[in-house]
């Protein structure tokens, strides 16, 4: 089991698991694997998890990070939950548009907007 420091911060906001990243660059494989594993552990511990991933402060991400998000989204759906994303920098949102992943994810400008109707849904 890894003893590396956590790469994410998870806060409960009225039943929604709000996730933030510690790093501004989500690029290297080891970090992405660790983030994916930490998220999977949190999701598997919840029933019908509602998860908000907030990208505040994230400057770069790679296609491997996108792949990890897809895997996390599939896991949440399998457990009857829902994933929302927020605070994505314009240049990174363009990566979602280029790859058409903006069609797969529910993306909101701010965490507050994402939480509206989510906590009670």
């Amino acid at each position, binding site marked *: 089991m890894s003893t590396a420091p956590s790469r994410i911060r998870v806060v409960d906001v009225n039943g929604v698991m709000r996730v933030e990243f510690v790093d501004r*660059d989500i*690029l*290297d*494989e*080891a970090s992405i694997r660790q983030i994916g594993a930490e998220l999977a552990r949190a999701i598997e511990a919840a029933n019908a998890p509602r998860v908000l991933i907030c990208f505040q402060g994230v400057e*770069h991400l*790679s*296609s*491997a990070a*996108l*792949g*990890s998000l*897809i*895997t996390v*989204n*599939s896991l949440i759906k399998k457990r009857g939950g829902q994933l929302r994303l927020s605070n994505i920098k314009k*240049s990174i949102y363009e*990566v979602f548009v*280029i*790859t*058409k*992943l903006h*069609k*797969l994810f529910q993306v909101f400008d701010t965490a507050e907007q994402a939480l509206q109707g989510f906590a009670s849904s």
Partner: protein
Amino acid sequence: MTDSTPGQCDEGSATIAEENNAIEGFQRRIDERLTARNYTETARFGIRLALEEAIMNGFHHGNQKDPGKRVEVRWQISSDVATFHVIDQGEGFDPDAVPDPTLDENLEIPSGRGIMLIRTYMSQAFYHTPGNHLEMHYRKPVTK
């Protein structure tokens, strides 16, 4: 990592191993060179992403994650064009055989987006046969 003295054209090469911070250190040095030649933040974002994808593809798909194998990057950066050659030690592949990741039926597949991001962010990108040598160019947009 070898460098020329910065002048008309900055050129050099690096042999990168898949280990912690190796790519990060390399990316930082390239970014400094691009910044010195007035590449915009948008250009540097795209070049960094393309290099990241190219090098990671070299490690994973080219070198098959063999820790003994390396990825070589050669670069030439002028005030107008940044050229990169990313060469792995694998057997190559057919880039045309990679499925389109933007098709609805492929959207939920977690991998296979690197090449399309490289082609989108760089002005030109192509593989030399047998496919273990990617050449890519970023040209600054012409401003009037």
